[in-house]
């Protein structure tokens, strides 16, 4: 069972409803923003190829699909995450306070091997709005207290800092992946729709 270099990074986005998780994802991947989505409908996951340290990797960004609205994200959502993005709305102090419980929830559900060093990235979204309530300093302090989580202030609407934030996310996810590779987690797992799962040799006979 040889280790296989995984070139697919799973990134999950967490945070209260309507902090802009889907919009951030859409801004980053599709370069577009819409005021239309109130609650997340139809948002599943997006994939984007990124170059990190001269290596091309596919980043798969998973949205909550609205299941966070009544605290009903199942453990399956968290499986195998390489990086967790915590989003709050700088105009909604409660969404900032809840970062603690989202982080805890992630660590419990995903139970990463090394919770101390698992890569999180925090995004304070909607900086384009006037009625800001959470100061940069407060957010930075919180991030520092949690093992120096990288922090970005973004606007999904204006596209501010989104590219840069996700570049960091990809980089940190890949580093996490590099460490996990040494441990050789589950080298043989299959995805059903992919052709390359079929045995390579001519052993496809039905006996």
């Amino acid at each position, binding site marked *: 069972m040889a280790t296989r270099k995984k070139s697919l990074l799973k990134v999950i986005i967490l945070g209260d409803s309507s902090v802009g998780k889907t919009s951030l994802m859409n801004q980053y991947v599709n370069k577009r923003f819409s005021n239309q989505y109130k609650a997340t409908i139809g948002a599943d996951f997006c994939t984007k190829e990124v170059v990190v340290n001269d290596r091309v990797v596919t980043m798969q960004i998973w949205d909550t699909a609205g299941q966070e609205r009544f605290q009903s994200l*199942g453990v*399956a959502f968290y499986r195998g995450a390489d990086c967790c993005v915590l989003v709050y709305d700088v105009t909604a102090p409660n969404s900032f306070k809840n970062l603690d419980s989202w982080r805890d929830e992630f660590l419990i559900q995903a139970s990463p091997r090394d919770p101390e060093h698992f890569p999180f990235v925090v995004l304070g979204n909607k900086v384009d709005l006037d009625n800001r309530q959470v100061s940069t300093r407060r957010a930075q302090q919180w991030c520092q207290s949690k093992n120096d989580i990288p922090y970005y202030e973004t606007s999904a609407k204006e596209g501010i800092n989104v590219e840069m934030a996700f570049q960091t996310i990809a980089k940190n996810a890949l580093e996490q992946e590099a460490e996990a590779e040494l441990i050789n987690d589950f080298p043989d797992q*299959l995805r059903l729709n992919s052709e390359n799962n079929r045995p390579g040799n001519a052993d496809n006979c039905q006996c």
Partner: protein
Amino acid sequence: MSDDLPEEFDLIVIGTGFVESCVAAAASRIGKNVLHIDANDYYGDVWSSFSLEAFIKLLEQPSNSLRNGSYTWHKSTEQEEQPVTSWTRESLLEKSRRFSLDLSPRVAYCAGSLVQLLIQSNICRYAEFRSLDHVCMLYNEELVSVPCSRSDVFNTKTLTMVEKRLLMKFLTACNDYGEDKCNEDSLAFRGRTFLEYLQAQRVTEKIANCVMQAIAMCDANTSFETGMQRTQRFLGSLGRYGNTPFLFPMYGCGELPQCFCRLCAVYGGIYCLKRSVDDINWTDSELLVSSAGKTLRAKHLVCAPSQLPATLATHFGESEPRISRGLFITSKPLGNEELNKGGGGVNLLRLLAANGEREACLIQLSHYSGACPEGLYILHLTTPAISADPAADLADFAAQLFETHASQILLSAYFTIAAPAAEGIANADTPILCTAGPAYEQDYDAAIENARQIFSQLYANEEFLPRAPDPEEIVVDGEDPSALNEHSLPDDLRAQLQDLEQAAQHMDIAD
């Protein structure tokens, strides 16, 4: 919890077990407005997987659908100087969350109903699987691997040269059965038993065992047609993924309902765990669900038997024992090194008792299944319930496993999965559609059939879980006019796209 839950729905589904989740996803997929709730704080109901701690807690709290729970911690069989294992109760509990202990574990045929449904609906993008490493059988009290592929047959040391040839010949005949080139001789066995047919082929006892126990999964009374069907199902699932015809979901079967729920949510279904139902009433046109001081209204309602409010449960008949389950955590896998190469994978063994009248299914999981910590193994033992005492129901099977095969058991647990009888559900005089609860089966045929049937009862002419497009394929109206669609493609590219689509369709139905 701030409760801005909407109050009117096309469909309310209560319980997040496999069947309910299938129905919820299918309804949401065709644009119905779905509320999916569960009284528990986890997905999956009696189809769920649990951490070690949660599992033990569950056994201590009997419910309508899970009862007769018991568990025992076993001390290391201490030959004092040489402790066989360093695992203790404490060290197991410390890794509690590394366990994913299934209540209703099962394997899926690579070309079976579950895999077909997952691919057809594109829900497969949410799930990962492990191909089973070995299909085993007990022969002369020895655990041996049943050769599955042609190279397996060539390489196996289990069979002699002559036996190999006989087995290949037999399986080829089974595979051709029903086709034009079908051997006339085999037609004579219609209406007789599969065992008679097998014996007439003059195979050796070992091969007969191989076929009966592991490949056709038959007993002495199984009809010729059924035996043929099952053999073909086994053979038809070979060569698709991995080396055996079976798959097991990574992290356990409890992941599967969640995959369906995610699709439901992606299409707008609303999810609310920890939400119990106090009562259900109805008028001619709608159902009224009282839950946490609110009245939720829906045109239709689907409910798991385990989550029916007490006032209504009587309509559907008493819950009775259906499946007897044993779950063992060990520090040593069953069988020799050959069967557990590199720490083991996922192995399947079908056991027989009472002269072949009763059967049980054993699934052994190593940490490569994602369901337990490294160095430990989970043994899931399942048999149709014949009493309210799961340990007694499984005693004959457990004896075959553990008396002759030294295994370092650290924890043994037993429980019963109960559900109302099918007649009760069908005859209930209410507009509530009740799902059937888990049955004893390989794969998910009965469960999927149950979901399909409920769905067609609700939405007669609608398609059941048509393919959900991948995110890249979705173009939101008016958002990006420059985005490509099929018609704006140049002709050659459009032809290519159509070819691809056709190829994709062929993949789904290939067998």
